[in-house]
């Protein structure tokens, strides 16, 4: 036990990693599924232990291979990174628990074991991404996670060949993003001679005003912006989410971009936080603010005109990412906290929405078209109930997590920008009601055109779906935990800025 606690930061990475290797060669798909679940559960268990550790120690630093930083690679878990760690662990656990039937029907038979393997590899990549404190190591994990995610997306080609093209575009853009990031890291390394994040944050101010640092910062941020699907670099996202196999959609929607946003915050505040004054990044943050506002509206408008349900949700994700980035771009404690609140909450919301939509589309074996497959909610009342709750949460109704996010985001926006920003936020969230209403109306009101299909509830998805729904409500009622941890995270991040 002591051994486990000592090695927690690496355990959450290597557990899924090693399991992914074992799973890849298993001949029996059920066994693969079982091991995937086991790995996810173990990871969750380690994450919980880590959460307890972090609440006591504030910061856990782990040195790979006993080489002390800045020479060796350091893994750090603090009050900021514990948030994405939890998101990844929980979502992976929930989504993998019901994945088997979906993969059996949506993925070519000979690829199912490999799909599980890639799933765990994605988890490992994301976990590594969150924990590593080495700027280059981060790049490696960035690529591990996004390459395996690309492969996962492409697995959806049995249902629709568009998955291949979606995966391809994701790959190309993602690779460009990652390369941009690594260019930035290279430039920083060139001027500072170190790759360790905290070491970088100390050495960059010593350089004074340096053009390389500015270029590096720009490259890194641009690269991560692609990964985080920040408008207008989001074009890969809707198709990738929509055409991926269903459980993958859930996993990606809830974790991948969130982690990228976390990295964005890490880079801006941990690495460059100390040199904030030197370079007066204020002007840059207005660009981010502008983009996030664009994302809010562009995503919403695209979602309004979208027919395919999964794609609609993906477009809505683009808009929601806009909200999250908006909070970060305020560079205040309240702003960052609000963006972390929404980071968590949106993961819960989107996971729930995707899960219910996916459950509804299972028997039809195709994507739900918001207009053509209608009245499906009547045939699957429990799933529909969960869908409604999550949709209301997305709309920001009180007693759901969506309300808390919106509340704190608007407060933060008002506190630093005055009335116009809350106005824009409210306007875009009002617009978002259009597509939410469209979905609900399509799924519930429209007369059943598909009553020939035998659509039943999917029992195995009940528990994860209801858990997510419950969490959506529970954290809407007892918001203290999320709010406090987000404020802690914001404080920890802003400690970097002097």
């Amino acid at each position, binding site marked *: 036990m002591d*051994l486990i606690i000592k090695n927690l930061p*690496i355990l959450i990475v*290597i557990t899924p990693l090693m399991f992914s*290797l*074992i799973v*890849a060669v298993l001949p029996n798909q059920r066994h693969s599924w079982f091991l995937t679940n086991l790995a996810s559960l173990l990871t969750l268990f380690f994450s919980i232990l880590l959460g307890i550790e972090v609440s006591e120690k504030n910061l856990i630093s782990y040195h*790979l*291979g006993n080489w002390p930083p800045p020479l060796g690679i350091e893994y750090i878990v603090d009050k900021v990174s514990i948030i994405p760690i939890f998101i990844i662990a929980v979502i992976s656990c929930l989504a993998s628990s019901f994945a088997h039937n979906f993969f059996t029907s949506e993925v070519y038979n000979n690829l199912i074991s490999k799909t599980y393997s890639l799933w765990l590899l994605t988890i490992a990549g994301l976990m590594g991404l969150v924990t590593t404190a080495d700027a280059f190591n981060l790049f490696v994990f960035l690529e591990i996670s996004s390459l395996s995610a690309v492969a996962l997306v492409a697995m959806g080609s049995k249902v629709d060949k568009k998955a291949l093209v979606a995966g391809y575009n994701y790959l190309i853009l993602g690779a460009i993003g990652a390369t941009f990031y690594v260019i930035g890291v290279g430039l920083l390394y060139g001027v500072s001679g170190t790759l360790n994040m905290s070491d970088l944050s100390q050495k960059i101010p010593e350089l004074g005003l340096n053009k390389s640092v500015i270029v590096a910062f720009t490259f890194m941020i641009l690269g991560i912006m692609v990964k985080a699907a920040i408008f207008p670099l989001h074009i890969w996202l809707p198709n990738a989410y929509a055409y991926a196999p269903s459980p993958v959609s859930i996993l990606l929607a809830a974790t991948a971009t969130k982690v990228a946003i976390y990295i964005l915050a890490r880079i801006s505040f941990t690495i460059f936080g100390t040199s904030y004054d030197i370079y007066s990044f204020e002007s840059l943050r207005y660009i981010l603010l502008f983009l996030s506002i664009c994302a809010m509206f562009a995503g919403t408008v695209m979602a309004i005109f979208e027919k395919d349900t999964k794609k609609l949700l993906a477009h809505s994700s683009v808009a929601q990412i806009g909200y999250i980035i908006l909070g970060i771009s305020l560079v205040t404690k309240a702003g960052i906290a609000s963006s972390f609140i929404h980071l968590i909450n949106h993961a819960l919301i989107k996971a729930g929405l995707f899960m219910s939509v996916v459950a509804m589309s299972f028997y039809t074996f195709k994507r739900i078209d918001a207009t053509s497959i209608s009245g499906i909610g009547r045939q699957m009342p429990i799933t529909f109930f969960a869908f409604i709750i999550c949709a209301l949460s997305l709309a920001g109704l009180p007693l759901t997590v969506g309300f808390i996010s919106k509340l704190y985001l608007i407060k933060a926006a008002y506190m630093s920008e005055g009335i116009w920003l809350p106005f824009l936020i409210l306007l875009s969230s009002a617009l978002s009601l259009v597509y939410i209403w469209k979905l609900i109306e399509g799924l519930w009101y429209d007369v059943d055109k598909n009553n020939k299909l035998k659509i039943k509830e999917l029992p195995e998805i009940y528990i994860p779906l209801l858990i997510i729904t419950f969490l959506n409500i529970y954290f809407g009622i007892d918001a203290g935990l999320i709010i406090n941890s987000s404020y802690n995270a914001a404080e920890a991040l802003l400690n970097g800025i002097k």
Partner: protein
Amino acid sequence: MNNLILKVCTKVLFTPIILFGLYVQFHGDFGPGGGFQAGVIVAAAFILYAMVFGVDKCKIIMPTKLNFFLLVLGAFLYGFVGIVGLILGEPYLSYDLLGSTKQSGQHIGILLVEFGVGLTVCNVMICLFYSFANFKFGSNKND
């Protein structure tokens, strides 16, 4: 390519290339070698064989399943060596405890890790070749 010279010469080259690959593999820490290059060299032998005699024949020596298994095994070895350190109470990727002394521990660790890398790289290359071998460039418009 149904070419007598190519066939006969491939037969001759196949074995030495593999041996050379293994040589590079196990002399990694003395020269500019290592698992990465070794893997590529060994894979090159297989790829040459597959190009000249056909992928199907190559799959007799290196079946797809074995290929994938070895690929995973290599990666697993890489990770597992790290875990051994972890189980022995050291941080991940510290090989000090693998041998009797710190030096030999490091040496054995690196040897094993390099072997894992080589195995993986080699099999990844072969795997890639298998999957791309039958990709026919049709009359696609390319721009």
